[in-house]
């Protein structure tokens, strides 16, 4: 793989630049088209028709947007906890992906909040959740935690980049101006500053762990787990499974972002790091499997009518593919097999394939957390629900995913997400 990845080095520089430009144009065109269609569907659906533009009903009041909301919350969690390992616990071998993990955590969080914002019927009342805080409500706590969490993430990203920001602020272009503003015209970055920033990052990373686990991610899992009316969700293990699948999707996202970026830019890959991230992904997948196993085992032995019905809906109804192909296949067994076979777990391409499978499969995991339990009637004699996201919901979803990628790409372009002195060759590409 090393040879393949370093092929680009043999290409002349101008050709390389031309190729990158071409990719960039295609990338931006796709994103902007997707985003534009998404905006159109938000305006024509959400703003003009309200919630009736979705396929939601009184039986299935939560659907695709809620599923994507928890999907992105989970991605943010995983990326953040990965960055915590780097800044909080000093696992420096992953330092290369530290900032990009933080950036993707922020971007995913913003996307998640946008999704849930469009799932709320009365956006004009949204401030009520802050003004009339119900301390009993897990959802109300989450709204507050999200705000604190985003502030923490942004601060952490800022301090992790400060050194490079100060260095780059000397350039005399627009970026330099932005950086000068961001660094408050600070001229030099001394060793004392470096030590202080490192300490700050460590403290923030460590504050962030309980905030992320209990507050944001376990908390988001608890939104579902505390609901006694839904026996399938109402278990102590549910928030933990939520965190675990968050770690799974976050790690997979970090791998995918790192490898794809390096491949597109034809940069050298840190193969040992990718392999080690791959084995971390396998570990998280393994733990998640154990938890899911016990969740289902105990659920089935409980003989609860609704629980059994929900499990039946998951595994044997017309939605079987969501469980067997997405949740169990793409987000569990295929990547586990890839990451266990000696030959494939060493190959960067296979690891990339495993992580992309996971990223796609976790969408199914999130849908399975939201929809089947709502389809199951709450009382005997009530109608059985039905739900598929309709066209308007899909268009909005893809628009918001495009928005996520646009913000990420902009972040990568504007901010020094890649460390200046990260290349082992010692060549600073900014000079």
């Amino acid at each position, binding site marked *: 793989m090393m040879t393949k990845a370093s092929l680009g080095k043999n290409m002349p520089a101008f050709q390389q630049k031309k190729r990158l430009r071409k990719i960039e144009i295609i990338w931006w065109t796709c994103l902007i088209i997707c985003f534009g269609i998404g905006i159109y569907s938000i305006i024509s659906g959400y703003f003009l028709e*309200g919630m*009736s533009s979705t396929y939601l009903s*009184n039986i299935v009041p939560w659907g695709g947007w809620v599923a994507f909301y928890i999907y992105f919350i989970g991605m943010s969690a995983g990326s953040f906890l990965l960055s915590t390992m780097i800044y909080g616990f000093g696992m420096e071998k992953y330092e290369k992906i530290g900032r990009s993990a933080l950036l993707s955590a922020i971007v995913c969080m913003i996307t998640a909040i946008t999704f849930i914002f469009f*799932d709320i019927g009365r956006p004009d009342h949204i401030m009520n959740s802050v003004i009339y805080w119900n301390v009993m409500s897990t959802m109300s706590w989450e709204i507050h935690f999200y705000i604190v969490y985003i502030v923490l993430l942004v601060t952490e990203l800022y301090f992790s980049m400060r050194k490079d920001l100060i260095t780059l602020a000397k350039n005399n272009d627009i970026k330099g101006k932005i950086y000068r503003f961001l660094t408050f015209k600070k001229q030099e970055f001394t060793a004392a500053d470096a030590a202080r920033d490192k300490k700050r990052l460590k403290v923030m990373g460590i504050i962030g762990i309980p905030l992320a686990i209990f507050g944001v991610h376990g908390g988001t899992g608890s939104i579902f787990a505390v609901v006694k009316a839904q026996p399938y969700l109402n278990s102590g293990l549910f928030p933990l499974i939520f965190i675990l699948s968050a770690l799974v999707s976050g790690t997979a996202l970090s791998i995918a972002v790192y490898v794809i970026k390096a491949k597109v830019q034809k940069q050298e890959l840190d193969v040992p790091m990718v392999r080690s991230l791959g084995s971390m992904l396998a570990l998280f997948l393994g733990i998640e499997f154990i938890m899911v196993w016990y969740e289902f085992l105990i659920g089935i032995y409980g003989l609860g009518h609704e629980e059994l019905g929900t499990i039946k809906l998951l595994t044997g109804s017309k939605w079987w593919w969501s469980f067997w192909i997405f949740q169990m296949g793409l987000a569990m067994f295929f990547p586990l097999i890839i990451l266990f076979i000696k030959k494939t777990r060493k190959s960067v391409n296979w690891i990339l394939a495993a992580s992309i499978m996971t990223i796609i499969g976790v969408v199914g995991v999130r849908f399975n957390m939201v929809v089947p339990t709502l389809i199951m009637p709450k009382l005997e004699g009530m109608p059985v629900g039905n739900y598929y996201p309709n066209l308007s919901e899909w268009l909005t979803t893809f628009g918001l995913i495009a928005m996520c990628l646009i913000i990420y790409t902009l972040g990568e372009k504007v901010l020094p997400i890649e460390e200046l002195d990260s290349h082992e060759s010692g060549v600073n590409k900014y000079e």
Partner: protein
Amino acid sequence: MALKTKNGLEPIEYAELAEHFVPDAQKVLSESSYDTTLGLNMARDARKVINGNLQIEDFHKIYSASLLKEFGDQYASVDTTTESTQKKDTGPKWGMVIDLKKCVGCDTCTVSCKSENRTPPGMSYNVVLETFKGDYPNISVVNLPRPCMQCDKPPCVQVCPTRATYKLDNGIVIIDNDRCIGCRYCMVACPYGARSYDFGDGYEQEMIGYNDVTSPEYGVERGERKKGKIPEETVRKCSFCYHRLQRGEEPACVETCIGDARYFGDMNDPNSVVSKLAASPRAFRLKEELGTQPRVVYLR
């Protein structure tokens, strides 16, 4: 004896007289298995209460600990704190009893509820769930009318992020549509599926004038039903027809029930029909195991 005196008796003489008739308290009490001095002291203080020298609340306060010690479980303590006594007098606590033996499944309650509350398509505060039990020829039909249960421990109130839904002192769980953000968490949390979301649809196309007026739920006149106007895009539910209760009428479903299967009244009043029916051995409540304590009682 003193009885023979002409000018009647002096109070002191009554006491003397009593001492002859009443047996010696100490002697009698010592025969019982309970504490003698406690009995004597209580008798002394009870006289003080009768004379007005001691408040009854203080009397209870003084002796409740020693009584509990002496009589244990047999002693039923009366909570005399002023707060709780005041709370008890705050008026009725509404409750509903539905006799399933009388329900014929005609759906009149559903229809009258719909016209009273002017609920949009796809929304019904009250439904009658019809289930068939057994195989032919041993078959039975159960009609289960399901309004909002107005739970005493409402799961929907627990989860609402804005406190837009809450419980009134009279037992009714209400929704403040002006505060609701439409997140639909309460709908997921309700074990009875009693909450619905107003998607903004209407019957205007098939029924001229449907949009002319919104139901005055909770006594709030909202006028014309218009796109984006409250209660559209918020959550709605049965309120025991709170606006009707305010003017002294029964909920629409109770009034129109053809078989008189529904009873409505004050659960606080032990003599009300609902209280008596709720104490019947036929009484049960839906999903009681969840601990929601519904205020709607069914008679099986």
